[in-house]
């Protein structure tokens, strides 16, 4: 008897919620998010199913998009502008860059509209709002996985044909590099989404800001081709060293340095922590302003 009562009591205590105006700044509320993991999974599923219902090609779009972009890049930047590609086959060079970049870009763009796009739902029911950005990150990671598989297929094909590509041990760092890239997209995204609840202008800035940012990242050009005067500027961009490391691991050419990677790592961590704290603070009262 006593035991059951104690258990009941424990179960009860788990669900005590205290609401008040005071905020604890350093509260990540990850436990709560974990309790809603099923919801996150269902959001991922929804995004995936809903995106391609009533389209003829369905998930094939995940493949068509990077292919067409890479072909365009190869023609415009490779053939016409003749930008060197660290002596790598231009197609693979652009493909690798685009795949990892689009992972970052889609995460950032989609996450940044979290509050605005879901305002009507947020106004009617509570769940940890972070479930939306997290599910978006997972969705775009799946899309990245598909594109990455395609990239690997091309890599094998090119290597088989004897192209000068040299996959090496840096490949093992790829999961971390990819995670950092996603975390950066998520971090920037939740910061923007938190700020858009107050400053709507930001949502306009995001779309073309991300486009411009691509040119500040060594996607269509290698870091080695950047003149000395601009190199530091490009390296201040935390994505730069990640893209270079990713390309170096699979293709065997690029500029990698532990110092640059450490900078990107710290940068990502700071952005992510600031983002989560800001987001959790905004979610408490954003319904009053949207």
């Amino acid at each position, binding site marked *: 008897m006593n035991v059951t009562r104690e258990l009941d009591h424990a179960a009860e205590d788990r669900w005590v919620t205290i609401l*008040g*105006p005071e905020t604890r700044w350093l509260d990540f509320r990850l436990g709560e998010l974990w309790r*809603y993991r099923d919801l996150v999974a269902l959001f991922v599923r*929804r995004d995936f199913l809903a995106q391609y219902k009533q389209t003829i090609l369905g998930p094939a779009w995940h493949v068509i998009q990077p292919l067409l972009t890479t072909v365009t890049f190869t023609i415009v930047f490779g053939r016409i502008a003749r930008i060197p590609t660290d002596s790598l086959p231009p197609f693979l060079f652009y493909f690798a860059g685009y795949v990892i970049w689009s992972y970052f870009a889609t995460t950032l763009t989609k996450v940044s509209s979290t509050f605005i796009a879901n305002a009507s739902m947020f106004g009617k029911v509570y769940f940890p709002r972070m479930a939306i950005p997290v599910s978006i990150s997972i969705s775009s990671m799946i899309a990245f996985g598909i594109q990455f598989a395609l990239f690997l297929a091309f890599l094998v094909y090119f290597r088989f044909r004897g192209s000068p590509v040299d996959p090496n041990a840096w490949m093992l760092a790829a999961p971390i590099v990819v995670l950092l890239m996603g975390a950066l997209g998520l971090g920037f995204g939740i910061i923007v989404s938190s700020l858009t609840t*107050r400053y709507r202008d930001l949502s306009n800035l995001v779309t073309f800001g991300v486009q411009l940012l691509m040119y500040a990242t060594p996607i269509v050009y290698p870091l080695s081709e950047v003149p000395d005067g601009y190199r530091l500027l490009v390296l201040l961009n935390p994505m730069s060293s990640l893209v270079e490391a990713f390309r170096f691991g699979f293709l065997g050419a690029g500029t990698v340095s532990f110092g640059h990677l450490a900078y990107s790592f710290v940068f990502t961590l700071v952005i992510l922590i600031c983002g989560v704290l800001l987001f959790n603070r905004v979610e408490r009262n954003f319904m009053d302003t949207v």
Partner: protein
Amino acid sequence: MSVIRVENVSKQYRLGMIGAGTLREDLQRWWHRTRNDAEPWKVGDVAGAGNGTGDRIWALRDVDFRIETGEVVGLVGENGAGKSTLLKILSRITMPTQGRIELHGRVGSLLEVGTGFHPELTGRENVFLNGAILGMTRSEIQRKFDDIVEFSGVQRFMDTPVKRYSSGMRVRLAFAIAAHLEPEILLVDEVLAVGDAAFQKRCLGKLDEVSKEGRTVIFVSHHMSAIASLCKRAILLKDGQVVMDGPAAETIDRYLSSNPSSGPRYGEVRFANASEDEPFQLLAVRTRSIEGDIRADFKSQEPVVVEFEFKLRRPMPFLKIGFELHALTGGLVFQTFHNDREELLTETGRDAHILQAVIPADLLNGGIYHIHPCATIHGRGWLLRDVEGPAINVLFDVPNPDYVVLGRPGEIAPLLVWQAPTARE
């Protein structure tokens, strides 16, 4: 044990905080502050009306109450009294500006049915998604899936995208999901306002069930009959403050008597404002059962007696007294007058005349109807029209015990005479 403790909760809104262009204002304010200038747009500054500190309103003020396990508490008050704000704070959609709230147990809020439904997904997929949004785990939904589908009555369409559903089907499915939510604390807003009469009845029935299972419910409604039948206790809010917290019947009385112009009134409505020298003066309209007691809740199988009490100071030729019956949706169901068959008013000058009209049994559908008394001089014009009289709440049923039917589509649901004629010889 108190499952809900609300301690001195206040909520302040800033008017006009919505919209763009605030970045510039914020930057300017920050600039002025760092230079120690007078801050622009301070209290009373009209130029900065969009963001000034002068435009704050208290939606809730020092709200303080406790609710014990298993209580079903109604929240009543006019529009803008703070009911929805309180519900939003309790369901964590927004935070209080001051005060503290303690909630013991899982909170399920039903401020809307079908939140997060995705039109492209099938009914099945939406059951899982919506269930999870409402706070259920996947295994919980799996366990209840068959019940949900059966309750919704849209079994055949579970693999059809929800965008092909009629709005009625969508609401039924959504409510079926919500009804299977099993939180310790359930917060329900005016969900009864959507859907047909049958749906409303179903909501009420389910809420009643929930409360019998010992869960705690806070229920916001404008339907006083619903509050009266479901809740033992009710809290009356006015201008963001708790005006009364007590037994439901007394709180409703207080609410209705303090707000003669708002919300439907049940049973009896008195009219005191007509001038003394009008020849015709309506005093009251009430609804009675056939046995004579004043009532607002009727079964569709019993007649409703609509009673008029009025003064007729001198004879008025061609006077017609009657009423309009309006459905909850606002549609006119019918209009009727006292002398449709024969003149009943043959004398004048009495203190009070009484006329009774009988709405026959087996005519009305389930749901709420409003009675609007009216009076006219035939061919001349209205003396009285568009006046709110009492409302009645009809519980629909059919005599055949093999079927339980809670309502029918349509504003009325008469039981017609059906027969199977024997073959002629």
